[in-house]
């Protein structure tokens, strides 16, 4: 179980990105995080694995205080939290296989990394992960030779390599067309349902939320304004989340 308690983030320069956000995610849930651009979704997801340090508040995961973890403990926590990004964040000049294997770095002895070595089981696992996301034949391509949808699958394969208990997906389909978006979301759904991995996924389109999410939290200007089932978002709630001038499109 993942629990966020009173997370507040103030950036240098005084921008208040998150104010007092609290929520819990039971193990195995698919949680959608919605809100306008700039409402704090990305900051919230990054506060969970402390890529961004929250200014105050705590994150508890399986009873452990993530926010108080030492650097070494944080590394051990991070390696069980996979992350998928809007802009894929692959190393363009490296091979797809190397990008996928990077997900294994938290488990690899740094001395081996110095000479760019991974164990045979890790390499085998990477090929399986690529097969699982449907691109087993792309292992030896350079990452920037792949299309956007394929790159995001590599991103998911990289997260799978971590044997994650949680996947944080930061607008994973915002850079993709609707068809590809559904295919990527289906991969995340399968990981959620088959492996029991908790997924926290920030999304723009409500139809995706309705189709894939078990539960929704909504942010507006850094505050939690809604928490509930996808079906509960009616027109009134919608205007609360997105502002009164917003129109439903999806």
């Amino acid at each position, binding site marked *: 179980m993942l629990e966020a308690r009173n997370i507040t983030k103030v950036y240098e320069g005084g921008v208040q990105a998150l104010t007092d956000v609290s929520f819990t995610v039971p193990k195995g849930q698919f949680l959608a995080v919605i809100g306008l651009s700039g409402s704090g979704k990305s900051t919230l997801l990054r506060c969970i*694995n402390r*890529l961004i340090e929250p200014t105050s508040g705590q994150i508890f995961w399986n009873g452990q205080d993530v926010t108080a973890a*030492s*650097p070494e403990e944080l*590394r*051990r*926590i*991070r*390696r*069980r*939290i*996979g*992350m998928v*990004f809007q*802009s*894929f*964040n*692959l*190393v*363009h*000049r*490296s091979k797809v296989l*190397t990008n996928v294997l*990077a*997900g*294994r*770095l*938290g*488990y*690899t*002895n*740094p*001395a*081996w*990394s*110095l000479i*760019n070595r991974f164990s045979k089981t890790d390499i085998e696992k990477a090929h399986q992960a690529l097969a699982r996301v449907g691109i087993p034949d792309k292992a030896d391509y350079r990452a920037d030779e792949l299309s956007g949808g394929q790159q995001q699958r590599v*991103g998911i394969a*990289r997260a799978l*390599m*971590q044997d994650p208990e949680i996947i944080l997906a930061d607008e994973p389909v915002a850079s993709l067309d609707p068809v590809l978006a559904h295919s990527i979301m289906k991969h995340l759904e399968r990981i959620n349902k088959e492996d029991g991995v908790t997924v926290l996924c920030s999304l723009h389109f409500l139809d995706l939320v309705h189709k894939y999410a078990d539960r929704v939290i909504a942010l507006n200007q850094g505050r939690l304004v809604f928490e509930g089932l996808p079906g509960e978002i009616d027109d009134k709630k919608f205007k609360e989340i997105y502002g009164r001038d917003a129109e439903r499109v999806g």
Partner: protein
Amino acid sequence: MTESNSNRETKPSVWRSLRNGFFFALAIITIAYAFQVTKVDLEEFRKESRQQSRVRVMRALANPDLFDFDRAETTVNSPVYLPCPGGVEPQIQREASGEAYVESLSCGAAGDVITLNGFNFPPNTDVVILFVPGNDPESTLALAKARVKSDSQGQFTAGVELPKDRESDDVQFLRSYSYKNVGTPRWSKSALNTWDKIIETVFMAFLATLLGTLLSFPLSFFAARNLMKNVRSPLASVALNLLGWPLGIWLGFQAGKFLLGISDSFAENIWMNAAGVGVSLLLIAFGARWSLSRGETDSSTMSRILTQVISIFTAALAIYAVLELGSLGMNLGLSMIESLGSFGFLGNFLFQSGDILRTITPALSALIAGGIVSSGLGRWGQSLSERLPVQTARLVNAALAAATGALLFIGIAQVLNWFYEIGNPLYIFTLPAILGALGGLTLAFLNHPKASLPIGLAVYTVTRTIVNAVRSVEAVIMAIVFVIFVGIGPFAGVMALGLHTIASLVKLYSEQVESISAGPLEAVEATGANRLQTIIYAVIPQIIPPYISYTMYRWDINVRMSTIIGITGGGGIGFLLVQNINLLDYNAASTQMLAIAIVVSLMDYVSSALREKAV
């Protein structure tokens, strides 16, 4: 609105013209002063003597001294008395040498013009008439008096004024000299010297670039803001880190010296060297395999201690292997210098590399041990400050910070003492210790005991400052210092160029690291990779192309620099060039300038072609 607008505009427009006028006047004054300081003066340029030397030097420069020929010389020494001995009238005499002969008067008074008529000289060639003082016709000491050209029959007529201050009772000579180039041209001596030195120059640049690239690669990460700004650690950790350095360096240096002593006892025997290398490499392989195969699953205290002991033992073996490798290289090299003949330079390379390995190993092991002890202690400090209650942590911090501050200041005082020979223990021990301890205490009490300090930014700032300071000294100037360190010659040039290369490449490289895209960095960090792994998998792949391009660019610059670094004694072609200019041998200097132009433009072309390929 419009009215107030126009009002606001008219008022400043006067101001603006005044201001513009002021700046214009200032600009004129600046330029005028620059004229004064740099002594712009066309009068000197127009002078007769300037014009003559201009013509002479430009013509000499246009005639690089490239080829030599065998000469067919014709010399006729006509005896002449100056003045005429008492009662003897000057009469026409004929002096011959082979086919050629010259008719002239046998004596004359000082200032008289004597006419020489030459016959059967090589046709259409320059003939120089020289006055040879003293009574030796073979003397090379001669004064050029006239230069004429023989006609198509090989005849010439020249009038020579007898010098006024060379009167003597002995016979003196008027020498008619002409030469012709015969046979095939061969490279002149200065062309051959130039070739030797230009090769030296190119390889100086190559070695300096190699050295600079190898060292600036790791350093550039410390000078990259985006990598360093997130590195923070608590005060206890920083203090223990700093305290660990001298301790580790001392331990490592002792270990290195001890191992050097052991390997010295086998230094002579080549087979013992080879066996030493082989055996220690084998043991290292076993040790490394064993300690690397320990997963994180097995973490009982006993097995962790065992792993550490074996790691230390493996590291010591590695140092020993390097030392033995050095001896092996030296011995093998020595035997190769004798047996390989013209490929003896390979042996010399082995010998010198071995020597370098053996020389730097104790220092290197000291540095590595320093790093290990410091990071170990630092980690301990980190866990201390996490576990201890706030009050205890405050005390521990204060004690550690005071000790570190005292040590740091004493260290600085020692360096100053070395330079200025202060010698008074009050100033080099007591006062710095007290000041440093006070500084440390202040730092400890100003910060919350558990607060983490931006140590990464401190390292970044220090690296940048040092690099910028070093970079601002040109390599030619650095060569002056290195000439004192290692003696006049190309090695000093390599050191100077190498140091300057490190300084400028660290800056260029680190700017590339700062401009990489942050996404992959974030992604790799999120997988639980440590800092080293993040650099290897997210940073290095992104910076390879610009690094190659900058290295090429730097090689280009180094070739250019090494052509002039000889001016200050740093070896290479510059040394020859300055020498020839000082000897006023502009033909030879021109040869060297030509060589520089060719090499620099070739390098320019090659490096830009390669850079295009790399990016």
